[in-house]
């Protein structure tokens, strides 16, 4: 359509000025929303934590209580992520490759942890493993395992809360895998385990990694379940998120902001890595 009606082409189609970009309205709205909801709070906390300079930030983070809280947070999240990587992949594999009665129900339950309040998760675990509960008492008396108010409780709570991440990352990729590759491997003499190890798993490596990293990032900030399960015992079972609450309550804003910045940076770095992995995967599939 190149009918040269001069006024129309100068004005643009909707009669907006020439300098106004196409789709400018929605773009502006989205950016403004993002700024108000994300950039401003992030900026404020960065500014607050760096008020006393990098030295001040380091000082606030390296107090014995804060350092212990951060260490506890990262190692429990790490153990959780490792377990989740294996069992999440297994769950996804079973959900995609096998059919059994109740499969639909199980599939729906996977998302449940996203929907229930994490406080409730904490309460459930205390009811199950607490010293007053039969199972908790037995574990403690017979095996000497302390679950509640101890790191195992934290790991259990994190596992529950982040259960969907690996499953849901792996499931669609696994479902879209070409079964003919498995069949080809079978005719070439490969057994089921070899096929999984050499054919299926390499294709799942990226989704497993990104799901695991996401669950780790999610776990760093978990508060509700942990405050119930682990309590708030400094140098023992206090995680970073719970520590931040304590600092806010005792009006130590620098302590709260500094630890928050560390958690935030780690989480954001992980999200960036996941994004990069997703990008690599799409590029690889396209090729």
């Amino acid at each position, binding site marked *: 359509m190149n009918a040269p009606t001069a006024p129309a082409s100068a004005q643009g189609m909707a009669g907006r000025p020439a300098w106004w970009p196409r789709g400018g309205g929605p773009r502006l709205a989205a950016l403004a929303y993002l700024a108000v909801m994300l950039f401003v709070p992030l900026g404020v906390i960065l500014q607050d934590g760096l008020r006393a300079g990098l030295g001040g930030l380091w000082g606030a983070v390296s107090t014995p209580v804060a350092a212990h809280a951060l260490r506890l947070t990262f190692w429990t999240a790490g153990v959780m992520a490792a377990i989740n990587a294996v069992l999440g992949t297994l769950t996804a594999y079973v959900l995609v490759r096998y059919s059994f009665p109740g499969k639909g129900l199980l599939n729906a339950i996977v998302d449940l942890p996203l929907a229930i309040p994490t406080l409730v998760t904490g309460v459930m675990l205390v009811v199950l493993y607490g010293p007053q509960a039969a199972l908790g008492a037995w574990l403690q008396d017979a095996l000497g395992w302390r679950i509640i108010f101890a790191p195992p409780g934290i790991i259990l709570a994190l596992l529950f809360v982040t259960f969907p991440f690996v499953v849901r990352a792996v499931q669609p990729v696994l479902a879209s895998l070409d079964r*003919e590759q498995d*069949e080809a491997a079978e005719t070439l003499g490969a057994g089921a385990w070899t096929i999984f190890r050499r*054919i299926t798993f390499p294709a799942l490596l990226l989704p497993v990694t990104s799901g695991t990293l996401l669950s780790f990032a999610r776990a760093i900030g978990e508060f509700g379940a942990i405050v119930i399960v682990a309590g708030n015992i400094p140098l023992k079972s206090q995680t970073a998120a719970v520590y931040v609450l304590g600092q806010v309550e005792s009006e130590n804003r620098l302590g709260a902001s500094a630890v928050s910045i560390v958690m935030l940076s780690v989480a954001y770095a992980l999200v960036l890595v996941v994004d990069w992995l997703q990008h690599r995967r799409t590029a690889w599939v396209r*090729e």
Partner: protein
Amino acid sequence: MSIVLEQLTKRYDGQPVVNRVSLEIPEGEFFVLIGPSGSGKSTVLRMIAGLNVVDQGRVLLHGRDVTNAPPQQRGVGFVFQHYALFRHMSVADNIEFGLRVRRVAPAARRRRRDELLELVGLAGLGRRMPGQLSGGQQQRVALARALAHQPEVLLLDEPFGALDAKIRVDLRRALRDIQSRLGITTIFVTHDQDEAFELADRLGVMNFGRLLEVGPPAELYQRPQTEFVATFLGTGSLLAGQCAGGEVRVGLLRFPLTTQVPPGVAAGPAPVHVLFRPEDVVLGANVAALDAAPFSSGKVESISFSGSFERVRVRLPAMPAVRAIAPPVSYGDDSFQVDALRTLEQARQAPLADGDSVWVAVRRIHALAYPGLSFLIMVDGSPLGQAALSVGGQMARLAHARVTLLGFGQPPAAMAQIVQAAREALGSGLAALETRSTPDSLVMAAAGECERNSFDVIVAGCAPATSPALVERLLESGPKNLLLVPQTLPIPVSALVSITDSEHGKQDVLVAGPLLHAMGAEATLLCVVPEAGRDSQPRTRIEQFLTDGARTLEAMGVTARTVVGTGPVVEAVRRQLDAGGHDMLVLGAPLADRSGRVAMSSRMRQVLEAAPRHPILIVRSRYAADVGPQRTFDGRIVIIEEVTP
């Protein structure tokens, strides 16, 4: 024997997709399995490889029964249509996979890999990833990978289906070359007949799960034994004719039989189908210009150029007592078409243009034994069963049909007596008579028997007006024409064919025509205009529709009249049955839904009730089968890229 299949059967949802396939393939043979999509050819291949479970029958590889062995233990190489290369492995790792699994030493592995890359013409590309190769190159890698562990048998499932024409031709040559160099027994599945003809030592043609014919390509092309093979491989004209004493008659014309007398054809006159290929057809401006037996004259309909040949399509007018089987008569037409293939030299000497009149002669004819219609008559000793036996038997005798008598629903001792009595009642005059019995119910017995053999008509004693559900179950049991007999009657001579003015209706006429011809009945085509309104347009259109139908029936050798009914369909049918003195009603079968269930509309039930004492023939056209359920096998996504040759 390298590969032996015994009565191999595979069912999905109870329907056989591979039906008693038996085959023996000697060492080193290149065997091609060809058939339309859904004919079960790939399933056969997958059962040999162990990728599909065998429901019945046996698979033997080099004398070893592997029916229940997992794929890993069969020692076959398999090539898939979409390559199925391991995407995250290099070409070299792909090829070495089978060797690595077998723990072959790295040095030997590398040697073998280089050998294979050389063999398939990809030397030096071992480091590439599959994604960096073209489709043709990827399939070469897949072939090398399938050969790496030195399998005893090579299976290829439409390996070139996803490639373009030029590459297909190159790969075909390369494959044939490699196969003969290695001497490996090979089965190649395809729907492409050029591919099949070029590659095959022997060819097997499949349709609807059955292996119809096996033989060298030239043999199957020139001397097919079945109608399907005659029309599926290559093009050509198939006409109904008579064979008597070394001579074939088509209508009033006579041809010396140039190939052998079809097996099973007696010395006396016997119905045959006459096949001639486009390259056997000679065209000339007049009879004198022909150097072969003149057939008829017609008009040039179209001329198309195909490289070194010119294909001339000639339309011939209707000839007395000449019926076309293929290409099938189209609705509303009584002429038929003949294709002729001419060299460019011939075309230059006698140029033709669209619309020219030409004489057509035929240089060579092949006669196929026409086995006649095949009836399945269901008997159980009851009065209804006797009615089916009496009416079905008389019709079968008239049609010189093959009959299978199936006793059902009685304990074995009583059954033997009933079947014996029925056999005596049928007497002689049939092309063939077989008897069988089963204690199953009517529907189960019919379904089971239809799986074993294909029938044109199933005759069952049944009062459709009182048991519509039974009719529905019978219709579900297979894509067969159904003759329902409510009582013992004289043989029908005048059929009322009730159709709708739709594609469905056209198909019903095309299917009913040959049956009515064989039974020697005449037909009245009835179509109903809903209301006797003022608007004359629908009526004129329907009259034209019926006239077309009658012309088609006449071309099939059935005397036909037309009637336009008005008002409610049921009333119109009842009125016409009474007024016209018809003694049979013909209806089109209702369509099955996607799950294969058949439910009759309330209108169809009413029509059945309108004829409580008449035999009712329910015809099942291909149309009904095509819009019926589409099955995908074990939930796999089936990529349909097949083109009908």
